[in-house]
Each structure stands twice: as C-alpha cells, then as structure tokens.
C-alpha cells in the first residue's frame, strides 16, 4: 500500500488533477477554494504546465475552453459566486462538445452569500450549469480520498463523452484534512482526441470547435444527438453508495458533506433499533435512479438531508416515481447539520419523537 498522508481537500483535488494528466489550470481566487489554485501555482510551473490567474472567472473558464479545444486536459475551480460567472463558458464547452473539469467548492448563497460550507448549487450543477439544452457530468465526493478518485474519473468520462464534468464539493471538504493515497497515474496514456484543433500539417481536414449553429435544423440535430448521449450516460454511469439499506424501513438520501453527518445519524438510529439506511449519490448527473427505484419497493419513507433548502428532493421523488413519501431536513446559509438533528428527523419518520 502506498503511504497515506494528510492532505487538505482543496490540495488533494489539485494534486489528483495533476496525476490525471492535467497540466493547465486557469482560475481566480475565492474562499473557500483558494488553496486549490495556490497549490497549482506552485506545482504546475515545475512540471511544464500552465498556471494562469485570469482577470475574472469568466476569462478563466474561457481559457479552459481554449486549452481543451487544443486537446489537452484543462480545468478551472471556484466557489459558488465564481461558478455563476463561469456558466457562460460552461455552456459554450457543452455546446462545443469539449471535455473540461470544473470544480465548485460550494459556499452559502445566493448572491455573494457567505463563505461557510453549503450545497446550495445542486440545482445549478444538475439542472442549468449554463444556458441552453445541456447537461454536464456532476460528481459529489464525500471524503478527501474520494475527491482524489473522482477527479481522474471526471477527466476520463469527460473525454469519453466529450462533455464538461464538475466536482461538486463544499467548503467543509475543501478545507478539511484526511488521509489520502494518491494514484500513481502520472505516466498514463491519455486518449487520442482526433477532434482537437492542435495543428494538422495538412495531413488531415482541419477541425472546427464551435457552438454557433444558425440553421435551426442543424442545431436541433446536434442537441438531439447530445441528449442521446445523455441517455447512454444515465444508463451506464450512475454511481452511488448504499449503507445499511438491506432491511431499511427508512432511507436517508444525502450526498457530499451532509452524507457524512447522515451516516453518523444512521449508525446511532440503528443502535436504537430503527431500521434505517443511507443512499449516497456519488454522481448527481446522472442521478442514481436505479438504486432508489429498487429501494422504493421495500422502504416506507425517504428523507433527504442537504445543506440547502431541499434541492434534491424532486429528483428523489422522480426516481421513485412518487411511490413513497419523501421528507426533507436541511440547514443552509453555511450551517452544517448535526448528527443529533438528523437523528431527530429519522425518528420523526416512524412517528416517534
């Protein structure tokens, strides 16, 4: 086993991206994400990469569009208000069928909001990460180690499906240190990108990366093709973790930081004889509908626990086709729910207080 060492979530995300072959980072500082960019600024120049602090978030995201169009792995990172500024470029990337990694270390919103941890960009990430008919891949890690693992996965799937991918983290995961083991993938062979605009020496037809289609029929055709790809993704790429769900009467659904709190509450509830489990979505797009649909056959009630006002509730309802009640408990504005609060909500599911 490789040596485990302590790393901050933000720094682990950065190192994992480098290990995944990403040498081009464009960003703009914002709390609680700044350590990520700071780490990149130290490491990338030493390995022949590009670290560039742009004049704005939008500029940084457009630089990612440029770099990825040339066929390299490129990324940007920010926190909630900064991600809003990047959405134009994210939409262009989706409309140009190019991969890229966008990291959102979420903080409280809306507006400038606060700087404490939050999950209130769920809707933005999963429903409208930019204008137009589009989706991006969205991953929600719950530990620093999982952040490391998902960065590589996000790059790989982004390349495979030619679309942007987002790691939806939060201030808690970004700031905390946990033991990590880094994958040794520095020397991996990255996939060929025959579509890239990286010079052709007249050996092939020149490539065009573009998101402007003035003929409605052509645009429709392209969007429909893209949505067929999204269907393949929904079928093949759902990721989740089930915890103590085998005989569960109640299922808590939580992702990222709040899933850790929920897991503690589930353990305590189990000690008290309540048959409760946890379904933790790891991908938010595609949403893990498969395990939820199955759990709806046996579980009586679902409880979403989130650090927002209940943005995931509708997705759970749709996944279980409204067959069971879906309750919600959450804290927002930068407050992390406590295991005791969640336990109390679990007890309410069974009608006890």
């Amino acid at each position: 086993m490789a040596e485990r060492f302590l790393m901050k979530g933000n720094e682990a995300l950065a190192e994992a991206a480098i290990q995944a072959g990403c040498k081009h980072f464009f960003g703009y500082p914002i709390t609680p994400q700044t350590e990520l960019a700071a780490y990149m600024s130290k490491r990338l120049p030493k390995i022949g990469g590009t670290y560039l602090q742009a004049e704005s978030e939008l500029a940084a995201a457009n630089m990612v569009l440029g770099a990825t169009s040339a066929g390299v792995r490129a990324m940007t990172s920010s926190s909630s208000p900064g991600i809003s500024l990047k959405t134009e470029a994210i939409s262009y990337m989706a409309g140009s069928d190019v991969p890229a990694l966008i990291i959102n270390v979420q903080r409280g919103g809306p507006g400038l909001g606060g700087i404490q941890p939050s999950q209130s960009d769920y809707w933005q990430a999963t429903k409208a990460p930019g204008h137009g008919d589009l989706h991006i891949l969205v991953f929600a890690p719950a530990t620093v180690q999982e952040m490391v693992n998902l960065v590589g996965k996000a790059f790989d799937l982004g390349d495979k499906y030619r679309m942007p991918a987002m790691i939806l983290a939060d201030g808690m995961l970004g700031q905390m240190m946990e033991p990590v083991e880094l994958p040794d993938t520095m020397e991996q062979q990255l996939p060929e990108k025959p579509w890239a605009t990286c010079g052709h020496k007249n050996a092939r037809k020149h490539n065009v990366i573009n998101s402007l289609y003035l003929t409605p029929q052509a645009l429709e055709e392209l969007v429909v093709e893209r949505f067929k790809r999204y269907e393949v993704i929904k079928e093949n790429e759902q990721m989740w973790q089930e915890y103590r769900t085998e005989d569960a009467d109640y299922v808590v659904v939580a992702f990222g930081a709040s899933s850790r709190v929920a897991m503690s509450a589930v353990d305590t509830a189990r000690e008290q004889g309540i048959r409760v489990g946890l379904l933790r979505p790891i991908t938010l797009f595609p949403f893990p509908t498969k395990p939820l649909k199955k759990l709806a056959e046996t579980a009586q009630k679902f409880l979403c626990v989130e650090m927002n006002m209940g943005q995931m509730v509708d997705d759970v309802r749709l996944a279980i086709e409204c067959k069971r009640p879906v309750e919600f408990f959450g804290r927002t504005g930068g407050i992390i729910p406590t295991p005791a609060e969640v336990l109390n909500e679990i007890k309410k599911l069974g009608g006890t207080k």
Partner: protein
Amino acid sequence: MSDNYNMLLAGFGGQGILFAGKVIAYGGLMEGKEISWLPSYGPEMRGGTANCSICVSDTPIGSPLVLSPNVFIAMNLPSFDKFIDSVEAGGTVIVDSFLINKKVERTDVKTFYVPATQLAEEKGLKGLANIILIGKLFKETGFCSWASLEKAIAKCVPPRKQHLCASNIQAIKLGMEY
C-alpha cells in the same frame, strides 16, 4: 476513555492551533487510525478565535465537525467560555492557565492547568506553548504511541526546518512533565 477521540483545539490565530491539530492528526495517522482535521476558516481568524476539530477513530469518520469534544484544549478566554460547556462528561480539558485566569467549574470533566505560554517563554521555546499542551494531552490520554508522536512532529515540521524538531520534542516533554 474510548479509543475514539473527538478533539477541539481553540485559541487566537497565530498560537499554532491548526499546527497542533495537525500534529495530533498525524500521530493518529501513524497508528493507522481514521483521521479528520477541520479548521475554522474565514474572518474570525483575523484577530479573533481560531479553532480546529480533530477526530481520531477506529471506524470511518462521519461528521468531522466536533460539537461535543471529549478532549478540549483552550488557549484563550473567549474560546474557553465558548466551548467549556460543550465538552462531553468524562472528557479531558487542558487549559493554558497563563492565558486563562479562570477555573473550570464543572466537576464531570478532568481538567489540567498548564501555564504553557509562560513555560515556553521561560525555557526559550517561544511559540511552542501549543506543543507543550500536546505533551500534556499525550501524557493524560495516550492518544498515540511515543514513536508515532515523534514521527508526527517530523512530518509536521517543514523539511527545510527539520532542526526545529528537537525543540518541539523538548516542548512535548515539558508538557508531559508538568
């Protein structure tokens, strides 16, 4: 005390609260334990209080935010006042009694008073009051082995400042002996 520690270290920014937390975290890591280290961050770090939650556990850690610590180390009065009531009954409280001129009124916690900041000053270990308190913590709880603690110090002291390891170890011993 069980082998699972939920620790809260609190004081002013600049006292080395986060560094001390990192030493504890590495000490646990060297024992093969599950670890989490979560700092407070934001405007309260500028001239206000800084604190740090550390969990050392045999099982995966749920919430890394420690709300009811079973170990509490206080390095200033505002932090002491803010968190003393949240300590779990039976828990361990270590107070820098040079900076906090107040006694713990609770009788259901084990309290140790160490004038760490003064000791550090007297012994030429300025800035290592945090590590002196860790020495006391180590002696009273044995949260990790001596070998692990030594390794933790070596891990936490930056490579180009390894000559400072000796003074850190000296600070640990000072805390243990007090």
